[in-house]
Every structure is written in structure tokens, then in C-alpha cells.
């Protein structure tokens, strides 16, 4: 699929782009661990759904708020 002229473009490209240094210079685990500790675990979607349903229920039936507190 490559024309002979494309070989010249490929050669020019090889000369033009930065060479890739393929050796990993250091152990990245400390950074990875930092990233893992930074992020709190995501709240599952059904928790959000439950919270939304509760909020809706309290909006439409505010009299249920004391009942809710009683059961908490």
C-alpha cells in the first residue's frame, strides 16, 4: 500500500520526530500508591438513586421528616 515516494516521507519522519527513550527511568509505584490513596472510592450509582428517592419522598411528604429522624 506504500508508494516509493512514501519511503522518503517515512525517512523524513524518522529524522523529525523525537526518538523514544524506552527504558523506564525509575520505579513508579510510589506515585501510583499516592494516586490510589488520593482518590476516594466512587459512590455506587444505586446509593445515589436511593438518596434521590429519599430526597423526593421528603419533598412530597415533609411530615415524614420526624419519622425518619425517629428511625435513624
Amino acid at each position, binding site marked *: 500500500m506504500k508508494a516509493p515516494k512514501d519511503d522518503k516521507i517515512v525517512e523524513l*519522519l*524518522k529524522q523529525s520526530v523525537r526518538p523514544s527513550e524506552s527504558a523506564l527511568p525509575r520505579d513508579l509505584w510510589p506515585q501510583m500508591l499516592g494516586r490510589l490513596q488520593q482518590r476516594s472510592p466512587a459512590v455506587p450509582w444505586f446509593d445515589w438513586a436511593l438518596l434521590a428517592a429519599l430526597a423526593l419522598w421528603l419533598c412530597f411528604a415533609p411530615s415524614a421528616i420526624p419519622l425518619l429522624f425517629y428511625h435513624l
Partner: protein
Amino acid sequence: MLLLEQQPDLQSQFAHGDLDAFEALFRQFQAEVYRWIVRIVRDPGVAEELTIETFWRIHRAHARFDPTRNFAAWARRISTNVALDHLKSAHPYESLPEDVPAAASPNPGVERDRRERTARAFRQLPAKLQVAATLALIEEEPYKDIAEALGISVGAVKLRVFRALRILRKKLGEMGIEP
């Protein structure tokens, strides 16, 4: 041999969310993932960040990982997507870094300008074409490996490389650069 025997257990533990198993896999594959990413993005600093991002995505997706599958191939696929996302958001007009070795030329200034403009034209290619062309033409990776990493067929890789060359030829022509 011992490592190969332990691998399915390790992968299974990782799939169940074991952090020690994740650490073991990280230490085993970080260099390989980094090497793959740096070939695509051509920047060691960025490649380090993207290696972390790759393993972050791997960690998040642990429950979806099938322990009977090849972890290295799965990691390569994710790292390719991470690198692709980076290229999509990267600015294509940044200048050529100083550490590109100078070619023997009667006029180094003109030669450097020519190469800088070629590199810029290459970075302006759509990210998908750029990744396929980098891996196939510059890194000379087998088309089969590129296809697996991108999750497409070998034919689709060849098509992307062909399109990349066609666009690049046109861009270089517009810039008055004769290869």
C-alpha cells in the same frame, strides 16, 4: 517458570480487588507499559504520567478483568487508549524539543526548520492516524500487534497508515517540503 505458575493466581487475586496482587502486577508490567506509551507520545515525562493513568484505569476496572486472559495484552490495550486520549487533547503546535539529534547537513538551520515543520505536520494528524503511523512507520511494530492494541483489524490499521501518509504528503506539499 514459578512466575508463570503464579500468574493466574495473581491475576485472579487482582480481579477480586487485592491491592498486593495489583502491586505485583504493576511492578511486573510498568516498564512494558511505559515503553509502549513512550513510543506513541515520544515524551518520557508524559509517558510516566500516562503509565500511572493506565494503571489507575486498570485498578478501577479490576472487577471486569477475566483472570484467564492475558494481562499484558489487556494493559497494552488500555495504555493505547490512554495515549490516544492524550494525543487528542495535546497541542499540535508545540515546538520540536532540543534533544532531537542534528543531521549532517550543509545548512543545519534549514534542516532543523524542515524537520520541525515535518514533526508539526505529523502532530496535526488526527490522533488515531498518528498512533497507527507512529507505531507502524516509525517504530516498525508488526501490524498484528498494532491491531490488537487498538482493538481493530489489521486491514483497518493499514487503512489508517495509508490515510496518514496521504494527509502528510499533502500537508508537506503545502508547506513546500520535498521529502
